[in-house]
Each structure stands twice: as C-alpha cells, then as structure tokens.
C-alpha cells in the first residue's frame, strides 16, 4: 500500500483500520472479547433486582444486582430462540422473561421458568440453558465485564498508574459518585478508535476545534461554564499542563490536561464562592483531601481533565470541581459508525446547589447538545467523507506530533508524563492494537 506521510511509523496501520469491514469484524473478536469493558456503576443499580441494559461491543447485555447484592452481567438473549429478554433501559425486576415463548430467567441467570416443561424430554438440559454470563469486576464502584475467562484481573488491566489517577481525581469523594438520570445517546459516523484516541491523547485539537469556547471566555461570556483550562492565564500562577500515557504492563490508557499549579484550585474556589458559602467550604475540603492523597509526591497536580481507558471508555469533566464527571462509552456500530453513550455523575458529598451547577456545566460543554462535543462530531463526520474515496484510501494519517522521548517529565508521578501536545498516546494505542490484532504478544 502506498503511504504518503512525512515520517511513516511502522506501528501505525493505514486508514483501512477505520473503514474495512473485515478488520472491524476481527476487532470485535479480538479487542472486544478480550478487554474489560465498562458496563455501569454501582449507583445505577443500588438495590437487589435493579438493572440497566448496556452493550459490550455490539452485544447487548443486562447489568443487574442479584439476590446476594452482587453485580451480574448477562448477554441479553434468550437461550431458546435468541430474542432479547430485557427491553428497558433501566428498572427493577425479579426475573427476565422472553416475550416469544415465555422462557424466564431469575436474577442469577438461571432458567427458572419453561412453559409446558412436561412436553420436553427428561434429558432437557435446563441447567445449562441459563443466560450467558460474563465475568464482572468492580473498581471502587466502576463496574467492568469481560467475556475472557483468562483475562488478567481488572486491577492488573487498569494498572497501578491509572488507578492512582482514578483514586485521586475521579473516585476521591468518600461518599462516592452518583449517576444522574438522563444518559445521552447519539450517533457519530466514525470509527470508534478515532474517538478513543481523541479523548486519550489529543490535547492538540483544543485550540482549533474548540476555539469558540476560548473566545467566549475572553469575551467574559463563558463564566458560568468555565473549566480550569479556559482561564489558567488569569490565575496568580499559570498552570503547567501535561499529557500522560499509562502503558506499562497493560493495555494503553491515556490522560489529558494533568495540571500543575494553583489555577485549577483557585478556579474551583472562586466558582464555588459564587454559588454559596457551603459550596466554597466543600471545594476547600475537597482540595485538602486530594493534597493528603498526594502527600508522598513531590509534584502535586491539581487536576486532570480527560482520558481513555482501553479500548472504548473515556472520561471528561474533571478539570473543574464545578463540572459533572462524565463517562463516555464509544459503542461500535460498524466500521464507520459509533453510538456514543454518555453518563453524568456528581460527587455525593457536594452540596445540592453544587450538584445542580455541575450538571449545568456539563450540559453546556461536553454533552450531546453542548458547546464542545458537537464541534468534535463535525470533524469526525467530514473525516469519514474523505476516508476511502479512490485517492484518499491510499493516504495514511500523520501521527508524528511530539517527542519520542520515553523518559517521564515528572518521574515521581505515576505513568509516562509528557509535554501536553503529543501524539505519543496515539502511537502506543495503535502499537498495542497492531500487536493484538496481529496475534503477537505485547
């Protein structure tokens, strides 16, 4: 294949990986069957019998809490003729009943009811016809599932380095996170990998793609929805930003906008003070708690903002305290189509008025009708318009940005801390993708 790029990197495949149906089918087998995939959060299924429906790759699944209060994940498919057994986004149930012939499954997935059972022979293997069950594991309330019996533990898959950043910047509220009603779902006519790489490593696009938000800020019209990154120049001491890749011994995860310096915290307190005295006290306590978690480190980052956990879970909204935390699932829907599922969370210990403002900010920024996400989607749509036309299909993308230096800029902090503007995460992402798609160990 002809490649036209300044410095072709052998680890970066050609753009057929974003449109070729046979590559996509192999991804479903190789990537999505082996990974730990996000399926939900404890707060979505607080009680026994509570459930949500979700997807693992293209497979529809049910996440429910069984009678012993354990989270369980089942393929949403009757073992008789393959109809779905749960048709709701969420709710509460004692069992899941197929509408076709009435086979019924209890919360443990067992086939508990078969109409006209007496018409089956005695050797009917009812015990073997429970709902197909996936492995489930929780990391501090974040629920993941895998079809791979031999997958490493979820802890090992996430890795120590990513878990450090999750512990300090995502899961640090002692009361935990609480999901808000109203998951956003929208289509992007683009391959899921382009979205995962963007959230995991693409600080480069902010200034161009999201120029309107920066300009609103400079005009003084964006104060109600500001995030730390917009305003760091107005702080007493501007933050330094970094990108971080977390690749040692596990699949590649990436983090954007690791902020050093006081501006994120100053922004939090100034925003919170406008809401209420309680809100300001909460923001101060939150900062104190995080400083404690960082006590052993020389560098004490004040925030991260965005990231991707391999393969298709991203997070955002962490750069400001007054911003709902959001988890985004890039659900593959064919080589050139992704269904985006976006969940919003608030920190439980935040005062009610802060929670309202967190949701307000997310709605107006990185959300389906916000002022950030739609600009990204337009880019991806146009990229696919000219992805595999006659000439275009022979052209590779450039993933050359940033140094290839593997030394961390802040070696006391976990992960490979890099300059902000780099495509190093992209390169690691595709190196890993190439390795597992090619069947080699990585």
């Amino acid at each position, binding site marked *: 294949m002809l490649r036209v790029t300044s410095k072709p990197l052998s680890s970066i495949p050609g753009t057929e990986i974003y449109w070729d149906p046979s590559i996509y089918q192999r991804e479903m087998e190789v990537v999505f069957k082996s990974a730990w995939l996000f399926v939900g959060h404890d707060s979505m299924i607080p009680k026994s019998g509570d459930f949500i429906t979700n997807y693992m790759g293209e497979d529809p699944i049910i996440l429910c809490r069984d009678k012993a209060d354990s989270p369980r994940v089942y393929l949403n498919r009757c073992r008789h003729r393959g109809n779905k057994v749960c048709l709701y986004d969420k709710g509460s149930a004692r069992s899941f009943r197929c509408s076709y012939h009435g086979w019924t499954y209890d919360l443990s997935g067992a086939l508990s009811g078969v109409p006209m059972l007496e018409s089956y022979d005695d050797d009917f293997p009812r015990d073997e016809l429970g709902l197909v069950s996936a492995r489930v594991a929780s990391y501090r309330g974040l629920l993941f599932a895998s079809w791979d019996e031999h997958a490493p533990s979820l802890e090992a898959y996430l890795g120590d380095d990513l878990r450090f950043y999750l512990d300090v910047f995502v899961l640090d509220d002692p009361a935990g996170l609480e999901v808000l009603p109203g998951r956003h779902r929208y289509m992007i006519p683009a391959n899921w990998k382009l979205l995962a790489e963007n959230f995991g490593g693409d600080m480069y696009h902010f200034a161009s793609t999201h120029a309107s938000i920066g300009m609103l800020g400079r005009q003084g019209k964006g104060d109600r929805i500001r995030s730390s990154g917009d305003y760091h120049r107005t702080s007493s001491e501007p933050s330094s930003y970094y990108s971080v890749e977390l690749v040692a011994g596990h699949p590649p995860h990436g983090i954007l906008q690791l902020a050093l310096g006081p501006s994120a915290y100053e922004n939090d307190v100034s925003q919170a003070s406008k809401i209420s005295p309680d809100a300001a006290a909460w923001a101060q306590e939150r900062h104190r708690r995080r400083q404690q978690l960082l006590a052993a480190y020389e560098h004490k980052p004040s925030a991260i903002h965005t990231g991707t956990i391999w393969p298709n879970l991203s997070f955002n909204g962490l750069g400001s305290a007054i911003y709902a935390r959001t988890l985004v699932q890039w659900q593959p829907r064919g080589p050139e189509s992704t269904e985006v599922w976006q969940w919003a969370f608030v920190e439980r210990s935040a005062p009610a008025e802060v929670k309202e403002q967190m949701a307000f900010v997310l709605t*107006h920024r990185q959300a389906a*009708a916000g002022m950030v996400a739609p600009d990204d989607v337009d880019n991806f749509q146009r990229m696919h318009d000219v992805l595999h036309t006659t000439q275009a299909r022979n052209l590779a993308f450039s993933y050359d940005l940033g140094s290839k230096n593997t030394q961390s800029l802040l070696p006391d902090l976990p992960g490979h801390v890099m300059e902000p503007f780099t495509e190093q995460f992209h390169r690691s992402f595709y190196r890993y993708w190439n390795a597992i798609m090619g069947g080699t160990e990585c």
Partner: protein
Amino acid sequence: MSEKVARFYALETALLDDDRFHEWLDLIDDDVAYVMPMRETRQGPAVEEHGPVFYLFNDDKESLEMRVARLDTGFALVESPPSATQRLVTDILILDVQPTHVDVRSSFMVFQARDERNEALFTGKRIDRLKIVEDGFRLLRRDIRLAQYVLPRTISIFL
C-alpha cells in the same frame, strides 16, 4: 387567541430557520426555563428521582444568549458554515388560557443539512408557556420531548 398563537409559532420558526437568532432571543422572556431531557425507558414502578438531571437543554435566558454568542464568534465549527434548517411546527393545541399566560402543546420536526449529504431529522413535541405581553407573547417555559431515543447527531441548533 388561536390565530395569535399560530402567528407566534410561525414567526419563531421563520426567525430560527433564517438564522436570525438575536431577533429570536427577543421572543424569549427574561425568566425563561428551556429544558429538553433525554428519553429513557424504565421497567417497574416509577421512582422519584431526586437532584439534578442530565438534560440536553437546561437553559435560562442568559445561557441561551451564551449559545448565540458562541455562534457569533464565527468559530463554532459545527455551525460554520451554518446548517440549513427547516422546521415544521404543527398540531398547535391551546391547553389553557389565563390572564397572564397561555399553555400550548405543539409537534415539531426539524430537518438539518450540512456538508452536502450530512442530514439529520429531529422530531418531538413541545409544551410551552407563553407569557401575554402588549405586542404578543414571550416564551416563558419550554419543555421539549424528543421522540428519539438515540440522537442522529449531536445538536448544534435550537429545537
């Protein structure tokens, strides 16, 4: 009254379809509550949800002005060049008439086109409260209920 209400919707539709967003803002009351939730299905008894909702639109006058100010920057990629939109607002049903306001239900369909063949359709209903003012109405409340569970694309226009 029904003729006046119909004229209000025809005017609003024309202003939005013609990208006259500042004039559209003039039809919006300073105390407006403009919300659009995402549709979700629930099995079992309805549960009272507490706390905030992750809305698609959760706007007051100031935040609607902020959305228009963003379009005015000329750097809102997703509307540069502006989308072509065509709205159909129909089934206008007056639910209640009070001395101060009118409650109205209507159906809408919004067609959006950009970049040649990139097209989307949004459809649903609106429950509005129109404040009666000297020269007509101002939009005081809008609750938009989309018929769609999955949006065909992100939303960069007003519904």
